[in-house]
């Protein structure tokens, strides 16, 4: 079932934080070209939250949303907030039809877990994107489907065997074990398999001649509002534009400053009063430690400091 039937997107605080952080990352592409010249390709669902945000904050006007749930076409059209171009097709069909001559920000935010289709999409985008583009891919990372398939049929092949059958030996490294199909390890495996697929696409592209291309991973996210999700984000650029890439200074983004490439978004559980108290000290001046009063848990306070600029503010409004 598509997640839009299950989850009210506006109530997903970690996703909200991820979107905001991604927005700051996208903004830095200005070193390549003004953001207004970019195209945003996403999977907007009925909420289009990412589209609204990036249209308003970055001024991106060319927007394409791919939607496979053709049955609810009217509902998507009715909820489309701006002049977003809708493609009612599976991504595997819609992506090859796009014009890739334009610099793009592509965020394929899937509901499901890693699949061959996800990898095929990653490969297609990696081989088609113009230099100066961003590729972001999010997948559900709870457990591999093959684990469930094995639990339903214990007389059959193991989960890992099924996983190898699904993805093929070139994609599943020798060291992968059964526990890599569960929890955090599965999130890590999903990211690395997506990354390898994009790198493979770039490698093939480089074998064709033309200026040498690179895919440079910038950051990964993991978070859990309802289902555990993980995202990998990187920039594709070619040799003549290396300087532009360097001028983006992605490493200076505050959520990347500690050199950690994986940002674990843990939404702190704090009261409004506690938040107000912590905020008076932020941003922390260099060399100062956070003062904690009362019984604010250290862990919650720390994640607040890390994420406060990106967290949503909730209030109930009676109309």
């Amino acid at each position: 079932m598509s997640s839009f039937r299950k989850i009210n997107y506006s109530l997903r605080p970690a996703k909200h934080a991820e979107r905001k952080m991604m927005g700051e990352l996208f903004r830095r592409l200005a070193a390549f070209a003004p953001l207004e010249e970019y195209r945003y390709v996403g999977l907007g669902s009925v909420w289009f939250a990412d589209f609204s945000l990036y249209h308003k904050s970055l001024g991106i006007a060319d927007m394409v949303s791919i939607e496979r749930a053709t049955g609810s076409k009217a509902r998507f059209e009715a909820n489309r907030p701006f002049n977003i171009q809708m493609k009612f097709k599976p991504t595997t069909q819609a992506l090859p039809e796009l014009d890739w001559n334009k610099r793009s920000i592509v965020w394929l935010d899937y509901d499901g877990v890693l699949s061959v289709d996800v990898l095929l999409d990653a490969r297609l985008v990696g081989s088609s994107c113009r230099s100066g583009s961003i590729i972001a891919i999010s997948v559900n990372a709870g457990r591999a489907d093959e684990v469930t398939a094995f639990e339903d049929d214990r007389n059959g092949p193991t989960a890992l065997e099924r996983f190898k059958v699904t993805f093929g030996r070139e994609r599943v490294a020798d060291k992968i074990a059964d526990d890599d199909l569960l929890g955090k390890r599965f999130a890590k495996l999903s990211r690395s398999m997506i990354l390898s697929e994009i790198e493979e696409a770039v490698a093939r592209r480089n074998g064709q001649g033309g200026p040498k291309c690179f895919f440079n991973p910038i950051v990964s996210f993991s978070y859990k509002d309802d289902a555990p999700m993980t995202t990998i984000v990187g920039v594709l650029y070619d040799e003549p534009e290396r300087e532009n890439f360097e001028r983006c200074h992605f490493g200076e983004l505050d959520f990347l400053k500690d050199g950690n490439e994986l940002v674990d978004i843990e939404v702190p559980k704090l009261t409004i009063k506690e938040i107000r108290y912590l905020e008076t000290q932020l941003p922390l001046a260099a060399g100062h430690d956070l003062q904690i009063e009362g019984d604010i848990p250290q862990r919650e306070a720390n994640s607040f400091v890390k994420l406060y600029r990106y967290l949503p503010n909730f209030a109930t409004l009676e109309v």
Partner: protein
Amino acid sequence: MANEEQEINAEPTKTFFVDMLVRDIALEQAVLDLLDNSVDGAKRESEGSDDFTNKRIEIAFSSDQFVIWDNCGGFSRAVARDYAFRFGRAAGARSTPHSIGQFGVGMKRALFKFGKHFRVDSATTDEQWAVEVDVAAWEAEPGWTFPWAEPDTAKVATNKPGTNIIVGQLRPEVASRFGSQNFENTIVGLIKSKHRQFISAGLDVRVNGNRIDATDLSLSFSDQLKPGVDVFELTYNGAAPVKVKVIAGVGPSIPREAGWYVICNGRVVLEADRRNVTGWGLMEEQQNRLLIPAYHNQFARFRGVAWFDSDDSSQVPWNTTKDDIDQDSPAWQAAFEKMQQMMRPVIDFLNELDRDIDEYTREKSPLLDFVAKTPLRKSDTLSEKTVFAAPARDSVQKGPKYVKIQYSRPVDDVEVLQEELGVRSAKAVGEKSFDLTLSRFTDE
């Protein structure tokens, strides 16, 4: 100028020759060719014992260079001069008994395929030599010789005999693939299966620093369920005999691993083959009747292995790239008949198994339960001649008779019950609600 009028110069340019040479081999295959050369070294060193303990081959590749190093004895200056760097195997060339690198072209082809600069250092216990070639310069020069270089004792020397090959200035399409994780995964996967037998015998093969273990090919083995095994020897026209062993039986249900494996002098040539070539979907020519069905997933437990072994590597049935069999080889034709005969009863049994599963479902099939519980045995350990044995359906103890129920209901309704019953799948909803209803009617 008189010559120009009388003769046409048809001598190939070296550039043309090199381009033609490297065209018809896949990159993966070229890497394996180099590995095969090292394995041959290990075979020479083991002197027929096939014990490869302490023999090591290390392969490392990246987008900058390719390196293969081994401690497998190296080869002499004379062998290098007279055979190893010749294109094609010269008449009278020395050969390794049971060798797997028989075609005399693998090494050069791989080196040219990878890049524009290569260096080979080799040492035996008696002497050491090196060859270094800048391909672009070599192509521009007349003549077909490679220059000796000053030996480097860092990696190989007379007190640590072996061979070290470095290829640099990689071709762009090669560099990009050597740099990719998927390529490394593919190479590791290929070595695991293609060189399985050597690794099992102790050969230490490393790829980019990681030691590779062999995949085992295992078959169900008990008194009631055991594979057919046949062993025989073939000799043609006074050439060295070919020892053949054929095994056909049942293994774990893994579609990817089902099919025929053909192994020549220890090197796996075909793995999990399910084409006509190994008999699948084969028609009887006269009656137009199917002898063996085409592969289908109900045969996911089929395992067949055909080993060929000969002192003379031209007698075993492989093609020049070692990725398929030579169907015209008399040894193959003789073994193929045997393979067909031994395959038939296994296929019949798997059809029986399928009928049992159809009747009882996967969870309840007594025959499937029997097969799943039968212990496995590594194929390499099977050498006694036996006939395939499997239990008949009615001989396996049966539980109560089952019937499968299938129905559909609106998704929303199923989700209501899924929530209420606390189960994960629609299937579980069906089972749980059946059980609950049954107990309400039978608990009186």
